[in-house]
């Protein structure tokens, strides 16, 4: 469905079976499928967790938490059943990588869930896929049925004596459900309102049982790292950031697409070499490097390494791997407005700073962009954002505030150019290019 791209700098680990028909179980087996889980069954839980720790695999959903450490938090003994939950509720604007994994390599996700389950001693797993991805849910349902038919799931998997059931689950349109505690609420058949933490899911999760929650890309990386060896996987990336990421390049580049590159790859190279540079001979204005929730980088700030730690040093986050490129013909105020419009729509309203904050940001940005802003509004945007940060149950409030604070801080002059009834300065640039530009 979605077009695949390639570039010589790519290191294909998670994407190595893309485009090769691996949704078919026999094809998957021919491409080293289900070898890692058989290895895992001989290793035992502690050795698996040590290997994942050695791989420096960090959470691909956005937070970058070390996966091996997360697994080690699950208590060995538990009165309540333990669970593994794969987060495939991919909804962060700019992010479209899990879609490719589910479409091209669904068994890799299943295999990752099996290995995680063996590692933490869980006998039930769920693969949650967002409701809009119905065709992927169907692919996953078939893959699960095929795995059951071969005895890879159910009782006595691979003749090992270990029992494991894995089920698909589907959403119905809600960004917030991508947050781990909201995801569990949704799976339990409720509104996706986040839970207060602690306790963390590893201790009290689904139906009160210890639960490991990992992003689909994280889990799809696990079989590969187990076959390669944790150290070899770690060496693909940079220190403390093992392996690769599926970077979703979008916006005003010549060659948008999902590219698998080693962690630590240079952002400037991603835009100009892999992505073919800015389309239509325009220039770079800004990049939102980790999905819509992270602060932007200006054109002068893009010579940075794409790994979790370097991005934090650069004042932003690696996030979900969505790299959104904005050219110099685009209006940052408009971009900020549309970003916030999303968060306002998705805020569940449970906590006041997020509910009211996103609403006030929206009112201010709309007024601003239509030329009705006053100088004080600029500081107000920042003030509103800063008062949302860290004051909400779940990270949606932060996700809404961080980009706005970044835009105001880094593009203040562009906000000022909209003041006192002046029309948007980008109106003077009608759609002169083959690529449609922002409308006003």
């Amino acid at each position, binding site marked *: *469905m*979605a*077009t695949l791209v390639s570039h010589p700098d790519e290191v294909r680990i998670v994407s190595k079976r893309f485009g090769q028909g691996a949704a078919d179980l026999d094809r998957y087996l021919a491409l080293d499928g289900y070898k890692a889980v058989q290895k895992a069954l001989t290793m035992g839980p502690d050795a698996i967790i040590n290997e994942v720790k050695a791989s420096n695999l960090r959470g691909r959903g956005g937070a970058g938490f070390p996966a091996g450490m997360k697994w080690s938090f699950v208590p060995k003994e538990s009165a309540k*059943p333990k669970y593994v939950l794969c987060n495939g509720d*991919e*909804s962060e*604007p*700019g*992010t*479209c990588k*899990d*879609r490719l994994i589910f479409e091209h390599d669904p068994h890799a996700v299943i295999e990752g869930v099996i290995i995680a389950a063996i590692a933490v001693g869980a006998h039930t797993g769920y693969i949650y896929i*967002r*409701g*809009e*991805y*119905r*065709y992927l849910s169907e692919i996953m349902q078939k893959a699960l049925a095929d795995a059951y038919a071969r005895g890879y799931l159910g009782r006595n998997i691979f003749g090992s004596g270990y029992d494991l059931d894995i*089920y698909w*689950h*589907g*959403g*119905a*349109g*809600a*960004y917030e459900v991508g947050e781990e505690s909201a995801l569990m609420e*949704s*799976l*339990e*058949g*409720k*509104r*996706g309102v986040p839970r207060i933490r602690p306790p963390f899911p590893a201790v009290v999760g689904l*139906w009160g049982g210890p639960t490991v929650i990992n992003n689909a890309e994280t889990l799809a990386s696990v079989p590969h790292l187990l076959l390669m060896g944790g150290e070899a996987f770690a060496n693909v990336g940079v220190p403390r950031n093992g392996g690769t990421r599926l970077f*979703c*390049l*979008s*916006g*005003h580049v010549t060659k*948008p*697409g*999902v590219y698998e590159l080693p962690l630590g790859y240079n952002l400037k190279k991603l835009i100009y070499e892999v992505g073919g540079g800015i389309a239509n001979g325009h220039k770079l204005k800004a990049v*939102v490097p980790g999905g*819509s929730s992270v602060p932007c980088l200006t054109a002068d700030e893009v010579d940075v390494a794409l790994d979790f730690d370097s991005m934090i040093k650069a004042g932003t986050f690696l996030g979900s791997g*969505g790299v*959104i490129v*904005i050219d110099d013909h*685009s209006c940052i105020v408009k*971009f900020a407005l*549309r*970003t916030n419009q*999303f968060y306002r*729509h*998705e805020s*569940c309203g449970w906590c006041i700073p997020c509910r009211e904050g996103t609403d006030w940001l929206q009112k201010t940005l709309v007024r601003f962009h239509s030329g009705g802003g006053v100088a004080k509004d600029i500081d107000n945007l920042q003030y509103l954002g800063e008062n949302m940060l860290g004051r909400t149950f779940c990270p949606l409030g932060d996700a809404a505030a961080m980009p706005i604070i970044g835009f105001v801080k880094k593009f203040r002059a562009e906000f000022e150019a909209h003041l006192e009834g002046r029309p948007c300065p980008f109106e003077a640039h009608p759609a002169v290019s083959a*690529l*449609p*530009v*922002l*409308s006003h």
Partner: protein
Amino acid sequence: MRFSEQLEARYADMLGHYPTRRSLLVPFLLYVQDELGYLTDEAIDDIAGRLELTSLEVRNVISYYSMLRTKPAGQYNVQVCTNICCMLRGGEEMLEHVKQRLGVAENKGITADGQFSVEEVECIGACSWAPAMQVNYDFYENLTPEKIDGVLEEYRKK
């Protein structure tokens, strides 16, 4: 109320997936909606009864999820993404084009013959292939006005 045989089989199957009945609620509601066009009062009451919930509890869940609806949409719901990545590549213009083409002015409006509805949606996970839309569950990407016309024509003929 009896749903189709296929949906009843799905319900029976899903019941076995979870330790609590209500866990199947969200994905099952979406399948019911696909069968009926929208979540009717009768269907809501019925599902509530099956899962030992009140109808209000079911409605409370429905109102949280943007894909679930308690009013009809067109036979083909055209959902155009205008979120940031699509916006940068003309998503708003594509939405406008779809609306004009189908003669639908309002968001979630339905054509007079009931064949199409148009909805502005948030990110559908097609960022690297923007601008994009979904017609029901099918994705259409790298849109241009011409491509949209072709897609709509195909559905019109169905």
